[in-house]
């Protein structure tokens, strides 16, 4: 098990959210959209170098800006 950010995670890999860096505001917004500690997410793609990351959480597909993705730490195999 290693802890990495969503940016570092490879496409088509799965991981469990272990930490969300950043303020309450961001945590709450992500929480409302279904990304929270303990949630399993899989990464679909990463557009460009500094572009958004697309993840699947449950049945939702979410696009997260680069900065947000960097703040979401997941643990994966």
């Amino acid at each position, binding site marked *: 098990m290693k802890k990495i950010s969503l940016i570092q995670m490879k*496409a088509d890999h799965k991981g469990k959210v272990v930490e969300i860096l950043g303020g309450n505001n*961001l945590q*709450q*917004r*992500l*929480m*409302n*959209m*279904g990304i*929270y*500690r303990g*949630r399993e997410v899989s990464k*679909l*793609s*990463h*557009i*460009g170098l*500094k*572009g*958004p990351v*697309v993840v699947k959480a*449950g*049945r*939702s*597909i*979410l*696009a*997260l*800006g*680069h*900065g*947000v993705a960097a703040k979401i730490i997941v643990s994966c195999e």
Partner: protein
Amino acid sequence: MIKKIYLIGNPNVGKSVIFSRLTGVQVISSNFPGTTVGFSKGYLRLGDEKIEVVDLPGAYSLEPDTPAEEVAISLLKEYPKNEIAVINIIDSTNLERNLLLTLQLIAEGFPTIVSLNMCDDAVHRGIHIDAEKLEKLLSVPVVSTCAVTGAGIKLLIQRIKEAAAVSRSKLTHEESWVEIGKIVEQVQRLEHRHHTLREAIEDASVRPVTGLIMAAAVIFASFHIVRFIGEIIINRIADPFFINIYRPLLEKLTVNWQEHGFLFHFFIGELVDGKIDFKQSLGVLTTAPYIEFGMVLPYVISFYFILSLLEDIGYLPRLAILLDNLLHRLGLHGYAIIPVLLGFGCNVPGILSTRILESKRERFIASTIISIGVPCVPLQAMIFGLLGAYGGLYVAGVYLVLFCVVLILGLVLNRTLHGYSPEFLLEIPPLRFPPLLVLMRKLFYRIKGFLIEAVPVVLIGVMAINILLYFELFDSVTGLFAPIISGLFGLPKEAIVALVIGVLRKDVAVGMLMPLGLSAKQMFIAATLLAMSFPCIATFIVLWKELGFKNLIKSTLLMILLSVIVGTILNYLILR
């Protein structure tokens, strides 16, 4: 006693479609989060009573994150809870995420009824939800609906009265998600399915390489289809009608009128080579209807057909992901592409939809970019109609200049304005294929809206010009502006009239350029200036309402400054 019914739910669950079903009031609905940024009201007949129904913008929770969500939540709290009923609309294909808001609504004591919407799509995707069990677990009524086809709506109406506040303990977010997990486990059964073609396309559209190829194909195809349909309507329907039916009719009706009398001038205008020339006569019954119905309406139809299709399929948020990188440099994020695309139809809904952006700074940048660099369909139709005659390169040139202006403006605003742009955080809806009937209804609604707004203003515009021409009042006014118009932009001084009329409507304004006999270069400069300069009055008012007076002035000054600079540069440096 229910006095008001509110429709609330996560973004993009079909609230507006349910609203139309309940009230018969047509509102714009699409397949992307944030279609509704204001609220609409209608009435539902329940027995003998007429109850007001309010369609709210989508919200993920009762704590607002965007201005659109703020609207929803503040309206919801306007009335005492015992006088309202809340219809919580849920996307059955994504039960889990939707239930957070449902639990909050119930815990806050709102009399709630749940509409499990899009149940047909859920079945297609192999998702089965036990509505009865869900009803027991939530202790509020749950009705399966499919708003697009109308299934379940009757039952929903019948059961509205059962909505009552139930007591349920308030949970923290973490606790809610645990609770939701338990509920979903009990009521939802997933059939194992292989990847369908649709899911394969959904996936491919959000991956870098395949996504870009698809985006390029979609944009290219859209542009060509809009032109193709527009031209077919003009060449096969509009032009034959005006030339073969309408013109002979007018000629017959006015055969006894004096050619230089006021009435003749007012209704028919100046004859060109002894004939009515729809583009140049400037009469209230000749040029005015021709501009609107013969030149603009065909493109309005074709543009909104394609835009509505893309909206309903759910492609636009996918485009937003791909453009996020570029738009970030302009101080926006990917989702700003939605207001910009709507702005290409008409700047007014475009600027209104900037409410889906979180910060004031972003909304200022997006609104300013739209009002300066995004030409609306009526204006584009006229540019195609007039400038197209000199060759497609000139038309492409206008777009290129506008694109450069937008880039530079965005880069500069992003560097100079205080604050930062928030990060992109967007749910990507599944691809859906709308029934043709639904699409046509939306198209019809938009065209009706266009005609109601455009026709009177066009008539007034042409009338004003016509009267000024007849009494020869122009010279004194135009002389004043000659140094700028002719000196800087190389246009005949009469072109100021077009720029001023542009305040009313841009399409009439371009129409005013037709009789001036401009050269290709002059027409190019004039069209670019009209696109960039002062927005039409409707856009101006919306800018004022959305940005406030101070920012309106800032935006306007930028507009004037940029128009003068670009006009001069085009005249002196580029097009010699």
